[in-house]
């Protein structure tokens, strides 16, 4: 029992220390963002078009695309970043265009297949 009450005291200490530390630490991060990052944002604004930015969800398609399209060998034996421009030129609106093209194609294809299978019968 004595041990247990000692343990409770230890845990209380731990909880207090922990929560204070977590708040201080993340509070420092708030200050870091508000003081340093916001200044950096002003000094080095994005030169390219604005990004949609505030999403916690990763859109990997670009990364993947680059992973598939990078081609050159480099000193470290790894492709560099030469075709970034090309990569970026595959914009979402082209993707959208293709998507609709696919839909159209699928409709055509489906009807053609139906015809074919009927003919085979």
């Amino acid at each position: 029992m004595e041990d247990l009450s000692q343990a409770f005291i230890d845990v209380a200490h731990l909880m207090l220390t922990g929560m204070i530390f977590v708040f201080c630490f993340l509070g420092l991060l708030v200050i870091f963002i508000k003081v340093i990052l916001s200044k950096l944002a002003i000094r080095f604004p994005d030169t390219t078009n604005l990004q949609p930015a505030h999403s916690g969800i990763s859109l990997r398609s670009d990364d993947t695309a680059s992973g598939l399209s990078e081609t050159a060998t480099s000193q470290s034996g790894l492709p560099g970043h030469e075709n970034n421009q090309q990569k970026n030129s595959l914009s979402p609106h082209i993707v959208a265009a293709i998507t609709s093209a696919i839909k159209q194609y699928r409709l055509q294809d489906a009807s053609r297949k139906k015809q074919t299978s009927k003919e085979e019968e």
Partner: protein
Amino acid sequence: MLSLNQLWQSTGIANLEPGQFIMMLVGCGLLYLAIGKKFEPLLLLPMGFGAILTNIPIAGFSETGGLLHYIYGAGISTGIFPLVIFMGVGAMTDFGALIANPKTLFLGAAAQFGIFATLFGAIALNLVPGIEFTLKDASAIAIIGGADGPTAIYLASKLAPELLGAIAVAAYSYMALVPIIQPPIMRLLTTDKERQIEMAQLRSVTKIEKIIFPTGVLLLTILFLPAATPLVGMFCLGNLMRESGVVDRLSSTAQNELINITTIFLGLGVGSKLSAHAFLNIKTLGILALGAVAFSIGTASGILMARLMNRFSQTSINPLIGAAGVSAVPMAARVANKVGLKANPHNFLLMHAMGPNVAGVLGSAVAAGILLALVGES
């Protein structure tokens, strides 16, 4: 007919112990949750399968020379697998919402109260006969409240390896249950009016901010809590690879092939800790109960913090996004969005909830570091 007898002696029927059989059913239960209920299938499927494999008699999966023995030894007891996965998570995380609204960091901080409050609960369970949790055990259990799988596995492998199986099961199950656990608490602790609060559009965040952010996080962790740097460091490395834009190859691999390969083996390795000996005792029930408590307290404290901040903040804050502070990315943010939409069809909280959501990841990594620093040494 020597060999027939020999063959019989080498069947599972002749060797299966009841505990092994029950643990296989537990493994099947995990597979059912993964496949039938889509509960965190990426980890629960290999974990459930690992639980079945490790309990097969004779095969010796988890004994010297066995596959799961190698996997566990190489990847989990060293901490490598959870750290590599955390790097991949970092490479998938966009801190934009957090940088645009840094106040939400406090929500992520408040939600960690779920972790520290559970420490109490774990020690209190020592009053139950048959349960004996040391301070290390209690810390490893409490981290379930962090709602972050790799962090929980990493801490458990360091502080209480024999509880790792139960802790991982609890952590991933409750993360999958977030859409069921959180809404009642959210409704209980907020008024309908509060749930209707719409939030101002977030400012756009520049590339330089996103690049410097992970470096800053790492710097602060180095200065104040080096014990958290394995987790925070690998997370920041992944995020820096992502945001720097100069190593897309590596970032893509960290988010895909590397994390996939590691996840298969992590699941199998964690599953190998689901032996009858380690799992079929009253401690596991205690861990499951404490996990639910941890999640609920974390959710509640996030919401209450958000209410508090809403009272004193110039811009209005919808308290629902406080619940996302437990992490469980991105499910908790989705839940906040859904509950908000129900109260007000024009209320899109998803992006706003991503702030506390990713703050919760940092928060629980920091909490894990504190526990490692203060409890790990003793």
